[in-house]
């Protein structure tokens, strides 16, 4: 193969491999560091097996319920055009960046012991345990499942539905000839993705689960590290989770067909089937119920939060500053890594597609690694040099960046590939240097995706209640941690005010970056 490598290209290639090395060091190296610092112990106890069983059960049920409910919901959104439909779909997307602790608070306000339904029924509901964990997971993943399935639905060209109408097909026929094949293509991947997300879920289990009968593996890792400083147990659980999740992730990859990320979620194709009164009414009631299920908890936060804003404790100011700094640092690291790795993948695709695919796989590693083990590994690695508690915030920022990286790459890579395919040759033939090439030719095409990814990374990090719980001392809490502490000490009113503040900052961060990315980048 001809080597036309220029020196400057070599530098960016080095940066790419450096990013990969960092990723491997942080995700696998940290697990190794934990292992090397433990005596290999006896293995799982019966209590541990109960934890594993609970983890799998809740994840399976959460994924199953989310997907089953998502099918009719997606169909209603696909065939029924109503005012506010676009808003509904945007709202479905927003749940992804909702801070978990805030959502849990909202769910408790509706379904909790003194929540809306308990009041209506005049009977206190108790959702702590399996019910609450599943309820929260469905709250988060029903929108995700709906969007995944809807994407498949909307990829059907209008012509097919016209054909169905011309051929005189009934709603039932359309189900058979079009909808079932779509579901066949989208359901397995959607189910497994949600299953994976629910297995590694932490904050939901921390707040709504707990106790010997409702502990997940991730929560067990946290407890082993935080309360018992039982490194062997943490390492054992982490390895188990790592292997389990890798298996599932590989299954997801083998099931998922390459879909275009931004396939037009705009207008539904005009349909001639399923327009009968019966179908219309079922669609409307479904959409209403789902809307209430998703919207009521948020409305509760808003209503409670506004009333209790004066009760905001003074501690929210330093906590907000901490959170903002973590969030912005983490988003910057995440996007830089994503850009470097995406361009490495593109450069490798031409001559060594297998290496390119392997690197894409590595960039998804953090989906299967436990953030606590990453945090602990980093902790152990830096312990000889400096007190890790002093570095709690930087560590949190780095771990958050790595956890958001898979999403960022998934967003940025396809856009970068399109920009390269359309304008790469032109830039090369004009003799643009590597820097000018990126600044003038690629970046302007990439900016909307980069802004979206950065908003996502910033919001996820802002709302994250993960690694920080492990390292935080009272004086360096983040906003989600402050809120959790208030909830844990039953200061519900103050917590509701913090919830409102937190969700406002998260959504605003996302909005700023996403909007900033969409401002057309024009070179005058």
């Amino acid at each position: 193969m001809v080597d036309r490598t220029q020196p400057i290209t070599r530098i960016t290639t080095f940066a790419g491999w450096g990013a990969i090395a960092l990723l491997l060091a942080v995700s696998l190296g940290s697990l190794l560091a934990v292992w090397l610092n433990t005596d290999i112990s006896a293995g799982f106890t019966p209590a541990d097996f109960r934890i594993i069983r609970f983890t799998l059960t809740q994840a399976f049920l959460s994924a199953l319920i989310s997907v089953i409910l998502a099918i009719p919901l997606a169909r209603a959104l696909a065939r029924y055009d109503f005012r506010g439909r676009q808003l509904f779909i945007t709202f479905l997307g927003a749940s992804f960046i909702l801070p978990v602790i805030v959502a849990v608070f909202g769910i408790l306000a509706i379904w909790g012991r003194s929540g809306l339904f308990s009041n209506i029924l005049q009977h206190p509901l108790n959702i702590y345990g399996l019910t609450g964990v599943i309820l929260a997971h469905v709250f988060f993943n029903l929108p995700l499942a709906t969007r995944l399935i809807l994407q498949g639905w909307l990829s059907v060209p209008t012509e097919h539905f016209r054909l169905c109408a011309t051929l005189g097909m009934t709603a039932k026929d359309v189900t058979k000839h079009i909808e079932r094949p779509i579901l066949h293509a989208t359901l397995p991947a959607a189910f497994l993705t949600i299953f994976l997300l629910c297995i590694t879920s932490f904050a939901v289990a921390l707040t709504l689960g707990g106790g010997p009968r409702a502990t997940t593996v991730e929560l067990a890792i946290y407890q082993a590290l935080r309360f018992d400083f039982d490194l062997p147990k943490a390492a054992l659980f982490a390895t188990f989770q790592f292997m389990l999740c890798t298996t599932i992730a590989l299954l997801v990859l083998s099931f998922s067909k390459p879909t275009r990320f931004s396939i037009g979620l705009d207008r539904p194709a005009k349909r001639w089937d399923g327009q009968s009164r019966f179908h219309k009414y079922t669609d409307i009631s479904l959409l209403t119920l789902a809307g209430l299920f998703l919207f009521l908890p948020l409305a509760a936060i808003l209503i409670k939060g506004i009333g209790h804003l004066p009760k905001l404790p003074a501690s929210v100011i330093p906590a907000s500053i901490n959170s903002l700094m973590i969030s912005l640092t983490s988003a910057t690291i995440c996007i830089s890594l994503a850009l470097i790795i995406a361009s490495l993948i593109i450069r490798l695709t031409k001559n060594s597609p297998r290496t390119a695919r392997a690197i894409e796989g590595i960039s998804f590693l953090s989906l299967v690694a436990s953030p606590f083990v990453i945090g602990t590994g980093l902790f152990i690695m830096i312990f000889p040099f400096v007190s890790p508690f002093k570095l709690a915030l930087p560590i949190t920022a780095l771990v958050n960046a790595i956890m958001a990286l898979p999403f960022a790459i998934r967003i940025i890579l396809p856009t970068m590939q399109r920009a390269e395919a359309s304008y790469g040759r032109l830039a090369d033939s004009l003799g643009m240097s590597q820097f000018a090439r990126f600044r003038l030719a690629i970046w302007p095409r990439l900016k909307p995706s980069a802004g979206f990814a950065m908003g996502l990374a910033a919001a996820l990090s802002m709302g994250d209640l993960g690694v920080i719980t492990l390292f935080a001392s009272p004086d360096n809490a983040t906003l989600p941690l402050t809120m959790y502490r208030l909830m844990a000490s039953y200061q519900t009113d103050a917590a509701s005010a913090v919830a409102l503040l937190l969700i406002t900052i998260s959504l605003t961060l996302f909005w700023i970056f996403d909007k900033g990315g969409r401002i057309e980048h024009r070179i005058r």
Partner: protein
Amino acid sequence: MSIAFDNLTLRYEGFHLTANFVLEPQKKYAILGPSGCGKSTLLAAIAGFMDIDQGRILLDGLDITNLPPAQRPVSLLFQDHNLFPHMTVMNNVALGLKPDLKLTAKDTTAVHQALKYVDLTDQAIKFPSELSGGQQQRVAIARALLRDKPLMLLDEPFAALGPALKHEMLDIVAQIVDRAHSTLVLVTHDPKDALYIADETIFIANGKAYPPINTKALFENPPQALQDYLGETSAKPISLNNL
């Protein structure tokens, strides 16, 4: 500038193309052939976008087989994506002088002159999307004019334009090429384009690029492969007179 294909073999996703001949300086060539035959691939090889399997490409006797695209003395026009949609017409043209857009006052004057040459002076601060298809390609031509390279490669940039507009474009290109004493290579699937502008035509079929032949002579006495491509109706000799 002369282009020599020295026992060149290109392989690309299951097809291959051989070429072994020399293109003379300051002449205009057309590459003609059915779609998928490798016309654009041959052009891409000259510009440096194709890995060369065997053989060499020489420009004025200098081996450029392994030279990166940026270091080749080439101006290139594609069928689309010739302009960056996020840059003004002015900046798109200026890229031909300064790929990093750091312009001096002298550069700016040169850019305006180029725009004047293609009659787009009053479009300078517009964006490509505000221009018609023909105007967009004129912007790309203005950039090529500024680049002032001894090789001008055209990959069907005018295929989407109507006949009159197409001839207008080809005329501007011919003027620029003549003025700069450059060599022109035009890829086209339309025999009329070849007759209109090319001194000699390279015909490609069945994995082989045939050495260039005087365009008129070629169409007056087309070889069998060319007859097959042209089809029965135009099997009789065609010339500029009966276009």
